C-alpha cells in the first residue's frame, strides 16, 4: 500500500524538484482517499441515508386481483379498481367500499393468505380504511387530472406508473427524508437518469412529455399547479 | 498585542483603543443580528412593510448603498481601463467600500424576501425580462468580482504576505486586475441601470414609469449616471472621514481632486438629463396616465419640496461646487459638495421607492404613509455598522492607502 502510493509521487518529484515539498508524505494519497471516499459517499452511502423505508400495512398482489384480466397492463383492467368518479376525478388507491364489492361476497373463496386475513380482520371487519402508502404521491401544489391523460390523452397507466399489473409483492415503500416524497418521484436511480418513461415523475418529465406530444400549451403553470 | 499583523511603517492606535472603537459598531451589528433572526424566524410581519409598501426602508438602503458603492467600479474603471495612475492611491479604499456596500446590500436582500432559502430560484428559474433578475445576476456576479479585487488587498497583510504561495497568488491577481475591473464595470453598469429600470418599467405606476430606449427605460441610464456621479463622492467622504478619525493624511490631493472633478462633470451631465427627464415626465408621461404633476403631491409628507431638494439643493449646487476648482480645493466645501451629492442620490432612490408606492394609482384609493419598525432600522444600521467594522479592520491590518507611509513618516 505504502509503496504503490509513493510511486507516482516519486516520479513527479523526480521530474519537478520544486514539487517535492508538496508531494511528500503521501499527499497524493490523501487527495485520492478523499476523492474515492467522496465517490463512495455520493453514490452508495448517500442514497442509503437519504431514504427511509416503511412497510405497507400488508402485502397486496396485483397479479391475484388481475388473474381474470386478459392483459394486466391494460387501462381498462386498472380502471376496474383505480376508477374514475362521475365528476371525472380519480379515485387513486381504492377505498374499502371498492374492496367490499368482492371481499364481502360470501360465495367467493377468500382468506387464502395471511395478508388477506390481515385485511379482513384488521380493516374490513373494523370498517377502517387501509393506510396504504402511495408510491406516486405528488405534493399539495400539484394538480393532476387523470381524466385528461387517460381519457383524452389515451395514455396508458404504465407510461407513468410502470407495469405492475403482474406483480405479486408490493415494492418496499421508501421516502425521501428531506423532501418527504416517495422515491418514485425522483426515481430509483440516485443519478436521476431514466430509461423508461415511468422512471421519474418530476415536473421536467411532465413537461418533456407535453412537449413531445405537441402540447406545449399544457406547460402553462396553472395546468399542473393549484 | 496585534502589532505583528499591522502593516509595516505606519502608526496605529493601541489594540485596546481599537477594541473600544469597535464595540459600539459590534453592538449595533448584534442588534441587527437579533432583528434579522426575528425576521427570518417569525417572518416579515416583524416589519411595517405591507401590501402597499412592498418595498420599504431596506430597499432604500439597498439602492442607496449600491449607488454609493459605485465608486468601486467607476474608480476601477478609471484606474485600470482608462489608466489614471494617480487613482491607484485610492482604489483600494474604493474597492473595500464597494465590497462593503454590495455584500451589505446582498445580505439585506436575503432578509427582505419572503422565502430566503428559495432565493436562488432567481438564478435557477430566472425570468430574464425582469429587471430585478438582471440586478440580482449582476450584483452577485459583481460581488464575486469585488471579492476577487478585495482578495489581493487582504493578501497584502503583513502576516499573510509572508506565506509565499499567497504572496504569489496575490501578485498574479494584481496582474489580471485590468480584465477583472473591465468585466466589473460591465456588470456594475448593467445592474446600476437595471436598478433604475426596475422602477422605470413599472408602467402601472405613473409616478415611476418612464419611456425609454429599446428595453431600457430612461431611469436605466439616469441611475447609472447618478451612481457613477455619486459613488466617487462617497469614496471621497469615506476617505476624508478616515483621515479625520486617524488625524492623518492618507491620500494625495491629486487623486481626490480628480475624483471630485469627474464627479462634478458627471453630476452636471446627470442633472441636465434628469431635468429633461422630469420635464418629459411632467408634460407627457403623467398626463398620459391621467395625472397632473401636482396630483402626485396632493397628500402626505412627500411634497414638491422633495423635487426641489433633489434637483437643486442636492443636484445643481454640488455639481457647480465640484466643477469649480476653487471651491472643490477647499476641504470643507469639497466634503459639503460630496455630502450634498450623496444625499441627493439617496433622496432620488427614496422617491422612486417609497413615494411611488405611497401614491395610489386608482383614483378611489387612498394615500398611505409608512414608518419602519425597530427591526427594520436595526438591520439598516447593522449594515452601516458592518461597513465601519470591515473598513476599520481593513485600515488597521491592510495597507489600504499605499501613500500612507510616505505622507506620514514615523519619526525615528
Amino acid at each position, binding site marked *: 500500500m505504502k509503496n504503490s502510493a509513493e510511486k507516482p509521487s516519486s516520479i513527479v518529484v523526480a521530474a519537478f524538484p520544486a514539487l517535492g515539498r508538496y508531494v511528500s508524505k503521501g499527499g497524493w494519497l490523501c487527495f485520492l482517499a478523499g476523492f474515492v471516499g467522496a*465517490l463512495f459517499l455520493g453514490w452508495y452511502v448517500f442514497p442509503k441515508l437519504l431514504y427511509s423505508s416503511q412497510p405497507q400495512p400488508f402485502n397486496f398482489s396485483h397479479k391475484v386481483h388481475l388473474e381474470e384480466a386478459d392483459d394486466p397492463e391494460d387501462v381498462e383492467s386498472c380502471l376496474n379498481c383505480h376508477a374514475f368518479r362521475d365528476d371525472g376525478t380519480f379515485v387513486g388507491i381504492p377505498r374499502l367500499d371498492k374492496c367490499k364489492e368482492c371481499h364481502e361476497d360470501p360465495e367467493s373463496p377468500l382468506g387464502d393468505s395471511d395478508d388477506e386475513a390481515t385485511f379482513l380482520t384488521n380493516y374490513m371487519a373494523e370498517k377502517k380504511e387501509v393506510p396504504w402508502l402511495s408510491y406516486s404521491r405528488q405534493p*399539495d401544489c400539484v394538480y393532476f387530472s387523470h381524466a385528461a391523460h387517460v381519457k383524452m390523452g389515451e395514455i396508458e397507466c404504465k407510461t407513468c406508473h410502470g407495469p405492475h399489473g403482474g406483480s405479486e409483492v408490493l415494492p418496499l415503500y421508501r421516502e425521501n427524508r428531506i*423532501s*418527504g416524497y416517495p422515491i418514485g418521484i425522483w426515481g430509483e436511480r440516485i*443519478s436521476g437518469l431514466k430509461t423508461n418513461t415511468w422512471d421519474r415523475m418530476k415536473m421536467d418529465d411532465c413537461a418533456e412529455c407535453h412537449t413531445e406530444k405537441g402540447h406545449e400549451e399544457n406547460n402553462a403553470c396553472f395546468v399542473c399547479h393549484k | 498585542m496585534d502589532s505583528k499583523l499591522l502593516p509595516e511603517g505606519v502608526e496605529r492606535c493601541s489594540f485596546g483603543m481599537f477594541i473600544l472603537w469597535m464595540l459600539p459598531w459590534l453592538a449595533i451589528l448584534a442588534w441587527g443580528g437579533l432583528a434579522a433572526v426575528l425576521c427570518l424566524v417569525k417572518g416579515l410581519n416583524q416589519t411595517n412593510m405591507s401590501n402597499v409598501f412592498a418595498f420599504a426602508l431596506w430597499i432604500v438602503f439597498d439602492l442607496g448603498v449600491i449607488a454609493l458603492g459605485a465608486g468601486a467600479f467607476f474608480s476601477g474603471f478609471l484606474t485600470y481601463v482608462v489608466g489614471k495612475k494617480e487613482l491607484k492611491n485610492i482604489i483600494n479604499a474604493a474597492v473595500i467600500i464597494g465590497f462593503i456596500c454590495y455584500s451589505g446590500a446582498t445580505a439585506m436582500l436575503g432578509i427582505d424576501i419572503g422565502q430566503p432559502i*428559495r432565493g436562488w430560484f432567481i438564478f435557477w428559474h430566472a425570468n430574464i425580462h425582469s429587471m430585478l433578475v438582471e440586478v440580482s445576476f449582476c450584483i452577485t456576479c459583481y460581488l464575486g468580482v469585488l471579492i476577487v479585487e478585495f482578495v489581493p488587498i487582504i493578501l497584502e497583510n503583513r502576516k499573510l504576505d509572508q506565506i509565499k504561495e499567497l504572496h504569489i497568488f496575490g501578485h498574479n491577481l494584481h496582474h489580471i486586475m485590468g480584465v477583472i475591473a473591465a468585466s466589473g464595470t460591465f456588470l456594475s453598469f448593467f445592474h446600476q441601470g437595471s436598478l433604475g429600470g426596475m422602477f422605470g418599467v413599472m408602467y402601472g405606476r405613473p409616478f415611476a414609469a418612464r419611456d425609454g430606449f429599446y428595453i431600457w427605460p430612461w431611469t436605466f441610464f439616469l441611475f447609472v449616471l447618478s451612481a457613477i456621479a455619486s459613488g466617487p463622492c462617497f469614496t471621497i467622504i469615506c476617505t476624508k472621514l478616515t483621515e479625520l478619525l486617524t488625524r492623518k493624511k492618507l491620500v494625495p490631493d491629486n487623486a481626490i481632486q480628480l475624483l471630485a472633478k469627474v464627479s462634478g462633470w458627471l453630476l452636471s451631465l446627470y442633472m441636465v438629463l434628469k431635468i429633461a427627464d422630469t420635464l418629459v415626465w411632467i408634460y407627457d408621461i403623467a398626463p398620459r396616465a391621467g395625472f397632473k404633476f401636482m396630483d402626485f403631491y396632493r397628500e402626505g409628507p412627500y411634497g414638491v419640496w422633495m423635487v426641489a431638494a433633489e434637483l437643486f439643493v442636492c443636484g445643481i449646487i454640488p455639481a457647480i461646487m465640484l466643477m469649480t476648482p476653487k471651491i472643490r480645493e477647499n476641504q470643507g466645501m469639497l466634503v459639503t459638495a460630496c455630502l450634498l451629492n450623496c444625499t441627493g442620490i439617496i433622496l432620488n432612490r427614496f422617491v422612486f421607492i417609497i413615494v411611488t408606492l405611497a401614491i395610489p394609482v386608482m383614483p378611489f384609493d387612498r394615500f398611505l404613509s409608512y414608518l419602519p419598525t425597530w427591526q427594520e432600522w436595526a438591520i439598516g444600521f447593522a449594515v452601516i455598522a458592518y461597513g465601519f467594522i470591515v473598513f476599520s479592520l481593513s485600515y488597521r491590518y491592510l495597507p489600504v492607502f499605499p501613500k500612507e507611509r510616505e505622507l506620514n513618516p514615523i519619526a525615528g
Partner: protein
Amino acid sequence: MGVTRRNFVKFAIGGVAGLHLTPLPYKLMDDIAIWTQNWPWVPVPPEGEFLSVKSVCGLCPGGCGIQVRKVDERAVKIEGRTDYPVNPGGICPSGMGGLQLLYDRDLRHTGPMKRVGPRGSGDFMEITWDEAIKTVAERIASLRKNAKTEALVSVDGNSKGSTLSLMIERLTKAAGSPNYVRMPSLEDTYEMGNLLMMGNNGPMAYDLENSDYVLSFGSGLLEGWGGPGRIMNAWAVLREKASKGGATVVQIESRASNTASKSDKWIAARPGTDAALALGIAHVIIRDNLYDQQFVSNYTSGFEKFKTMVLGQYSPEKIVDITGVGKEAIKAMADGFARAKAPVAIYGKGKGTLNGSLFEFMSVQALNALKGNINKPGGIIISDPLPLATLPAISPDGVAERGILTPRFDQAGTNKYPFAVSLINNLIDVINHSDKSPVDTLLVFSANPAFTLPDSGEVNRALKKIPFIVSFSPFRDETSFMADLVLPDHSYLEKTDDIVRPNGLQYQLYGLTRPVVKPVYNTRSAGDTIINIAKAVDTKTASSFPWKDYESVLKIRAKGLFDSGGGLVRYKGAEPAWKWKTASDGPDYKSFGDMWKKIKTDGLWYRKLMPSAIDSGIFKTASNRFEFFISQLELAVKDYPTAAPGGNRLKELGITVEGDAAFMPHYEGNHHHDEQLPLTMAPYEMVNLASGWAPSPPFAYKTIFDDQLLGSDSFAIINPGTASEFRIKQGDYIIIQSKACAVKARASLSHGAMPGVVYMPLGFGHTAYDEFIREKGVNPNLLIPPGKDPLSGHPVWWTTPVKIMKG
C-alpha cells in the same frame, strides 16, 4: 504520513472534487428546494370524493337555498342554490362563511356544559347529556312541586310559527308557565299594525319583484332586510327593469346607507319622522285626488276622518319643518307613488331584527291603502299562514293550569299593552325593579338578548339576577356565557329543522334544513333536547310530548302541507316563483311519503304566488274593511278601564295626541329633546355584519372597511360639519354619552351622515366568542336608554339623544 493540516487539506480537496462527480450536490439541492416548498406547518387539505348536499340556510329567517360542497365527510364550501326559489344562486356573506361557524371550536359549545367561572367569563366544564338534561328537568320539576311554575321563563329567538318555536312554547306551557317570551322583530310591528288596520295578522309581504315604484321608509333593503338572498335578487330584478326605465326605488333614510346610495333617489328625512313624511305624502295624494277612489270607497272605512286629519295637520310646509325634506321632494314622491302602476310603500328599520314603530308603520300602510295596492301585483300581499298541521293541544295538570293563568311578567296583552304578544323589555324591567328576580329559571333558545337587545346594560343586570339560566345556543355567545348550564343545539348544518315561510316572502314556502355533515361536536338538536327534558320532568309534562324525536314532529306538521293539496317540491328555475299565477300548480309528488322524502332531500315545498282577491275577506276588522280610523283601538281606549281612577287611557297607552287623530295613523312628535344631549345617536346595520343571534363568520370581517372597524375600535359616522363643531377629525377618539351609558369609539366623517346625528353600527362590541369576533368595537345597544314605542310597548331603539366629546 500522519494527519497534518496539509494532508487534511488535500483530503478535503480530493473529497470536494469527488463529491462533484456524484449526484449528491444536485440531488441535495433539489431536495432542499422541495423542502422549502412544503413546510410541514402549512395545512394540506386531504383529497377525496366530492359531494354536493342540498339544504337550506338557517342563519336568519331569510331561508336561502344552499348547497354544501363536501370532500368525503368534510364540508368545504357553501354555495347558493339555483334550484331554490328564494335565492336563485346567490347568498349573503354570512351564509357564505357558514362553515367557520360549523368548525371553529372556539365559537361553539362543544358539548353540554356546566358553568364553573363567574357569569360572563365563559369558563365551563363539559358534563354528560344525561346530567345536563337531568339538571334542567329537576329544576322544572321542583318548580312544579312548589307550584311556582310561572317562574320558568323561556326566551325564544326562532322565527314565529317554526316548529321549534311551538315546541318551546309547548314546553313552557306544559310545565305551567305563561311566560313564553319572544325576541322582538319587525314582524311583530307588521303583525300588530295589520291586525289593527286590516284585522288580519297573516303573513305580509311586499311584492318588490313585481313593483315599479318602491317607496322605502327606512327598510335596509341592501342591509339584510327580509331575506337578504331574496331581496338582493329582487334588487337585481328592479335594476334590470330600471335600466329599461321601468322601475324606481326611493329610499327614505337619514344616512346614505347602501340602500340609499344605490337607489334611484335618496330622501334624507330626520330619524324618527317617517310617520310625518308618509302622512305628508298622503296629504299631497289626497289633496291632488291621486288616490284610488274606487278602492277607498269600496274597501276602506274612516277615510273622511283620515282626510280631514291629513289635510288639516300634515301640510307639506309643516312636514318640511319636521322631516327636513323639501316640498318638491314630497310632491315628487306623492306623484311618483300615486301615478305608478304597481307602487308599494314599504316600512322597515334596518335589517328588521328589532321591532319598528307601530304608528310609523300604520302611516306607511295608509299610503298603500290610498293607492289600493293590497293583494295586487307589486303591492303588499296578505296571505294565509302555511297550512301546516297543528299539534295536539297540551293537557295541563292542575299545577300547570294554575301557572298558565298567572299574569305574564311582561304584561303583554294586558290593558296596558293590549295588542302586544310578547314584550321582553318589560320582562327585563320587572326583574330589575324587583328585589328578588321573579324569574327562577330562564331557558334561552336561538337568542342572544345580552347582546342584541337595546339597553343591553340593563339586560345584563337582569340576567345576573336570575338564579338559573339555561342556554341552548350552539354558539359561545354573551347570553350563554351568563348561563349556568348549556345544552348546545346543533348548528344549522347538522340538523333537520324547518323554516316556515322565510321573512317577507310573497308566496308560500316551507324550507327544511338537513344534516349536511355528521355533528362535529357533542351537540344535540334542541327539538330533541326539549322532548328529552319534558320526558324527564314528570309523566304529566311528558304526556304533552308523545313523540320519539323532533323529526317526527316536523313530519306531523308537514302532513298539513300535503293535506292542503297542491304545492311543488322541486323548483326548476325556469319561471320565478314570484310570477303571478291564476291557476294552482302541482302537485309534483305522489303521496305524503313521496313528498316528505323529496322535501328531505331538496329542502322545500312551495306554491307559486297566487294571493287571495281583495274581496275574498282578507279584511277581518269590525267593518270588514281597511280601517284608516281604527275601531279596535277606539274600543281599547274607550271600553277598557284606566289603570288608575281618572287616568287617561291614551296616555297609558303612550299616545300623546288627542281627538280622532289618536285612533288613526299619526306622527307622535319628538319628545326626546334634551338641551344636555343635543345630538341623536342612530344605530345602523350592515349586511356583512351579523347583529342578531348568530355571529358573523370570521370571513365576513374581511368585508368590513377600516373606517368601520380598526383594530379594537369601531367608528361612529358623523357629518363633517357636525364634527367640525366639536373639532373632531377623521379617526379621532370620541366619547358618546347618553342617559344610559358613555362609550368610546372613533369618528368617521362622512357626507352620507345627516348633520346632528351620530351613526353607530350594530354588531360590534362582542365580549364572547373567540379572537375573530371578541373585543372589536363597541355595541351601541349599551347607549340606548329604556323607552317605549307608543301603543305597541316595544323598545324605541332607533334614536337616542346623546352628546359627544373628544376622547
